[in-house]
């Protein structure tokens, strides 16, 4: 508690970071040159740093346990926090381009770990540009779930190449997803929802989940309820558009 008083960015009652101290711009240019550190290859990802309880020392990262879920553009990390307790044995990471937002999620995870000993050890966040560096973090077929929740819509046609779901980038997502892995997308912008659906539908390495499969997947419900953006849409009575697809082996 004493520490919290010294640090006004943490809430006095919960010990969690307060969002108002992490105000960030809503957008960040994904095409500009990045100057933050990037692992040279997936072998260089520091698991010890991200998951200290799973990897007690940096020498013991034998590669037996790997990150399986990636939340691309995790924002303030609402989904990750929900998933962390739902899949306590699965390592998951959020990827966010805006460094202030990443800072917030980092603090949030640390605070949750302190408040709930033994929990939230399987979740972490990294500042990166996932449109450029996905292969630097994950090996081929490493991931079982990828999330793209409420991405930047980039309305202008000129800016469509900045969208995080595109036919070219789906090739890379298909590369890091294992066969059977699932890609979840949701947006409150109808035009973008259409776009993401079309991209996934046209891609030979993805197929849509049936409505029964969607029904039984516990994660699908979290898409609109767990994230900060989703809650905002629900508050305003807005509509959301989902596209959930499975990675399949390409037909020869």
């Amino acid at each position: 508690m004493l520490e919290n008083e010294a640090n006004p960015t943490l809430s006095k009652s919960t010990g969690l970071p307060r969002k108002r101290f992490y105000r960030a711009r809503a957008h960040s240019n994904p095409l500009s040159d990045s100057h933050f550190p990037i692992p040279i290859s997936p072998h260089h990802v520091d698991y010890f740093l991200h998951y200290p309880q799973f990897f007690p020392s940096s020498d013991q990262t034998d590669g037996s346990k790997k990150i399986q879920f990636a939340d691309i553009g995790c924002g303030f990390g609402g989904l990750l926090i929900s998933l962390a307790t739902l899949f306590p044995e699965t390592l998951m990471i959020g990827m966010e381009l805006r460094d202030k937002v990443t800072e917030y999620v980092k603090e949030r995870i640390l605070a949750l770990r302190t408040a709930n000993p033994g929990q939230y050890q399987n979740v972490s966040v990294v500042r990166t540009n996932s449109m450029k560096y996905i292969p630097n973090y994950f090996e081929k077929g490493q991931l079982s779930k990828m999330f793209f929740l409420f991405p930047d819509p980039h309305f202008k046609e000129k800016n469509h190449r900045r969208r995080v779901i595109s036919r070219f980038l789906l090739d890379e997502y298909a590369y890091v997803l294992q066969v059977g892995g699932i890609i979840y997308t949701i947006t409150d912008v109808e035009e973008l929802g259409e776009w993401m659906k079309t991209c996934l539908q046209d891609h030979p390495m993805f197929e849509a989940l049936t409505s029964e499969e969607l029904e039984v997947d516990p994660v699908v419900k979290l898409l609109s309820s767990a994230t900060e953006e989703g809650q905002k849409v629900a508050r305003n009575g807005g509509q959301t558009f989902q596209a959930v697809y499975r990675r399949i082996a390409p037909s020869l």
Partner: protein
Amino acid sequence: MEDAPTELGDSNKDTEVAPALIAVHPSQDSVATAVGSDLRVFDFRQNCAVSLKDDSSEGSLHRDSIRAVRYGAHGKLLVSAGDDKLVKVWSTLSWRCITTVCSEKRVSAVAISDDGSYVCFADKFGVVWIVDLDTPDGQVVEFSPDGKYILSADRDFKIRVTVFPKNPLDGAHEIQSFCLGHTEFVSCIAFLCTPEYPQGFLVSGSGDSTVRMWDIISGSLLDTCEVGEKAGLLGSNGREAECYSAVTDLCTSSDGSLVAVAVQRQVPENFLLHPFFPCQVVPIRGGTFIPTSLQMCSSTGLLWMITGVSNLRGSEYPSLARVRVISGLKKSNSDSNEREPNVMDDNDIPGGAKLLEKLQGSLSYSEEVFLAAAEAVKTAMSNLLIKKQYSSEKREFRKRTRNDKKIKH
């Protein structure tokens, strides 16, 4: 520190120079060089310079700097492309333009599939396009060739290996692997095939002054050669450590016994060339010679090199080029690994003065212009490939002058 040249290159696109390029016919029937928008070909069969003919509706040669020129594996085709967004496919028999393809963006690289039925080209947005030469009107569709895989390299240190699809016109979606390990832009890639391993290894050169060898199926790094360091041993003037010497180009011999690498270095007499296994530095005497492009002829074993630029400001020659050839790279006998590389005298080069006159545009240039040219190439290369660093004031200034910002009234 680096701000000044960056700003310069940034604000004034006209100062962008294009390095000279060279391509050699697989059986050395002809040699082609590209300097600026000028594509020059010398035909050894006729022993004369070639004038290229283009009867297509476009009716013209390249209008802007050529960025890539290459022969097909069997030498029937020559393809050239560049900043004018045109990809031209030439027949090496008639020296006529077979097809002209208009690209959406400026083209940065080209390749021809081994069977000669597909031409692919890449732009700076990272899209690889493929042209089916069998369809009459040269239809442009995304993605492209190399037997089983398509390889592409980028300035974000990556090499991507994509599976070449059954029906390429539907696009290539399956990625085989990524070759990760370089710590700067990847400037050149080539295959090295040995009799024991006919599928071949990939070798790549980069701005981090290393040459690396890869297994493309798994994407694993097999070997790294610090060529910058090796070349530094010869110069030995201690300034090496501060700046990387970028690898500008590399090429491999057809028997897989040799990789020739061109390295950029600061001091004069710097631009050297070395075979890889075992590493050997070949100093090029007779003045400054910093190759911008290399190619080895598979039949004769001669290594052709060119240096030069176009659009060079403040010089009496707006574009210049210098061609040199290294012989003695072929093993004298199969038992020994001994090689005696020898930079050939101008008169001994096949085609002689006639060839040089065509390919260089002139027989001789003075020393100083090549130094200036080397500097210009280096600046152009770093502007193009090295990530721009801005100080915080510069960044603020650039944000203020953004043209997409809404103006409040």
